[in-house]
């Protein structure tokens, strides 16, 4: 855990307790069933994807350090204001949050959100509320809005650009991870 993502020891302790309580068979690491045992996460439309993010490096268990490392993405950023007054926090933190979100879309890790991937996420989130056609239209529009190099997919830079005016930090921070 690098210095830029260090969590205070009190919080670490709490997280460790949580880790232990999740780890039902006490192996010192979490497996996918441990995640699925969490009711809320199972019902979350993108619960599966969140889970995937933890297991990203190809292993099938998550040890405590990886657990914390991923969760550290969601620390609120400690920002200093500077003259511009715009969102000028440490670039790495915001970028990391965005990268995390991007990876939730980009399941095949090709660095782009294709239309199909976008559709999948939309389908998961919107579910039965909309028709397939509406989904198509929405996905279409989303890609048209964001896709600047016309490759019919959203790359990470385009993703970042489309969100440049949004306050990511508020949206993707959990205060108890400070």
């Amino acid at each position, binding site marked *: 855990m690098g210095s830029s993502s260090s969590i205070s020891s009190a919080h670490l302790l709490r997280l460790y307790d*949580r880790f232990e309580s999740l780890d039902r068979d006490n192996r010192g690491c979490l497996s996918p069933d441990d995640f699925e045992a*969490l009711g809320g996460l199972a019902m979350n439309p993108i619960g599966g994807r969140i889970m995937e993010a933890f297991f990203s490096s190809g292993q099938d268990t998550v040890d405590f350090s990886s657990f914390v490392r991923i969760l550290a993405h969601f620390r609120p950023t400690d920002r200093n204001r500077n003259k511009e007054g715009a969102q000028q926090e440490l670039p790495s933190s915001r970028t990391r949050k965005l990268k995390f979100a991007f990876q939730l879309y980009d399941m095949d890790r090709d660095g782009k959100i294709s239309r199909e991937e976008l559709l999948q996420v939309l389908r998961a*989130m919107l579910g039965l509320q*909309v*028709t397939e056609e509406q989904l*198509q239209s929405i996905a279409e529009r*989303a890609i048209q809005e*964001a896709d600047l190099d016309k490759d019919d997919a959203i790359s990470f830079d385009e993703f970042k650009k489309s969100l440049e005016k949004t306050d990511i930090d508020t949206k993707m921070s959990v205060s108890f991870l400070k």
Partner: protein
Amino acid sequence: MILILLHGSRGEIPSKPIAATILPFVKPNDGVQTYPEDQKNNLPVFTMNYPRIQIPFEITLWVLLASFAKIGFHVYHKITIWVPESCLLISIGLIVGAIMHSVHEEPPAVLTSNVFFLYMLPLIVLESGYFMPTRPFFENIGTVFWFAVVGTLWNSIGIGISLFAICQIPAFGVQDINLQENLLFSAIISAVDPVAVLNVFEDVSVNEQLYIVVFGECLFNDAVTVVLYNMFSFVAEMPVVEPVDVFIGVARFFIVGLGGMAFGILFGFVAAFTTRFTSKVREIEPLFVFMYSYLAYLVAELFAISSIMAIITCALTMKYYVEENVSQRSCTTIRHVIKMVASISETLIFFFLGVVTITTDHEWNWGYILFTLLFAFVWRGLGILVLTQIINPFRTIPFNMKDQFGLAYGGLRGAVSFALAFTLPDTIGRKQLFVTATIAVILFTVFLQGISIRPLIEFINVRRTNRNLETINVEIHCRLMEHTMAGIEDLCGQWSRFYWKDKFMKFNNRILRKILIRDGRAESSIVALYKKLELQNAMEILDTASGNISAAPSIVSLSPNVELLMTKKFLAADLRNIHDILSKNMYKIRERTVAYRGKHALPNDSQTREILIRRHATIRRSLRPRSFQSSNVPRTHKYFSLPAGKSLESRFDAARWHYTDDHETLSEVAYPSQRSRFGKPARSSSSKAMIPLHRLGTLEEVPSTDVLNEESSSTGQGVFRTNSSYSDSRVPHPRRLYSLFDDNNSELGHVVLIQLRDWPHQEPSQGP
């Protein structure tokens, strides 16, 4: 008898014989009745009856005068950048007041405290509540309440006690004011006023957090102010204060605050429920919104609980459900009317503030007033400082020093304090002094702070906001992030606001929506935003559509030569083709002249209510893998919303876009072939570049429509005949497709708006 007659004849035409006899003794009354010259009883040719219309007349004149002032300000628009409108209005009011004073006229009796609290304030607060951005509000709700409640308490008590201390100094000559009265006065002037603050902050686009906290604070501090005011005014008449009274005060505060909210929510739900059934009476739908909010306000006033909180929570609750139930038009009407009346109300308030300043009797006391100003400022600053320190650890994004400065400096006092000062009981000896001091504080804060806040904020570089355009991307990604955060919170085992929000949304979708919304389908905000954006794009297209297509930069910019050629080519000749094909497919176009259906019915727009764009080519492109490149699809086909050969049902079966009433209408735009082929993603962005997106509230009726009667023989001419006898019942066809042809028929064909109507099922006849 003469007296009686005199009295009786003031406003009426005197009975004839009597008039004749008493005429020599009676002088004409003030402009009421001109008696006939001769002693005969002629019908008066010209009569004037002023007192009858006096009150409405004067109100109207004042409103007009204030509105003219508003128009006048914008003539020289630089002024409004530097001087907020409230200042200008007060200045005009001062001038008018000076004029009135010099001619010894009284200000209109209509401006009483009652009028302010019962008629003017609810409208302003309703507007604030209705247009409050809900998401940031609920994210910051803790901070808002913290500042509203504790901040106001801190301010009142602080100012009250320090003023009391000042009063002890004999030099100022105010020793007769005791502690209770001081506290009462300080309760009045510590109330930050929504009207003044909003007026100023609107132009200074500070960051969202700051805005919402200031905004929320001034709306919700009413609860505290009401309690303190009542408590202190009650107590001011008592010689001794006991501790039990303090506890009662606290209890009262909770009743006032929570009761207000409870009433608001109750009325909000009732309003939402009512609008579920209003699909047949669309014309009066906006009425429900107003009546229920006003009712919430009045009922709260009845029980002396916080009426402002009631009306705000009512508006917040109501808005979400009502906007889904009512028609698009009603929605627009509601928004417009709220804005209009709030604007008038606000204008009048500031105006009268100026007028009454001159015309009341003042009692000036240098020491007291100056110290009041000083303490108001100091205590607010201190309060913000201390409170922010306490609450910053709980906030995800802490307030930095600059934000705090903005918060403190933005604490303007305004009309609420003013009205409260006037309602002070007359038993208070120094009422005039209080009134004068209140006015002084108001004028000082509004003028000085109002004018200087903008340059100061720019100077110290408070974080600003970007009033960003809404995009569907942002909405989708934000939704994703919310889900992510809910999941993460679950994982960490900590419940925080995402969890509660998630819970609430589930509860909302499962239960509340089923009860309160007419067709109860859960609609995601993503879909709603998508529809809205499409609608805006449609309006933009129509705005540019009246010109010719080659003038539209978006097309020209794409691939100039080919496009221009193709545009011009298929206009005239293909028109006939299109016409045949369309009529064969039983397209129907909206009437040009609106059929008169009776006095209380709105124009018949049931078929053509909403316009949504479907990018057919792009949809088809996405459905059929990459086949759009083929150029051998006949050009005319691209006009249809269906791929050739498919039936209507399969494509549009489930497309229920539900803005309107039971007959779903779906409008679609088929772009000309160039667009479909070459109109790649740049369309939306370039159209944005052309025209700023309208807010949905400015949706206008599309002016240019033509009618093509399906029974009339197709003429292939550009101009289509209107058919005023179009009626639904005669044409029981399924899946009517209505087209809307552009008025400028020489350049016809670049926009075809098609509407789909969901009729009872029958097989349609096939296309070509």
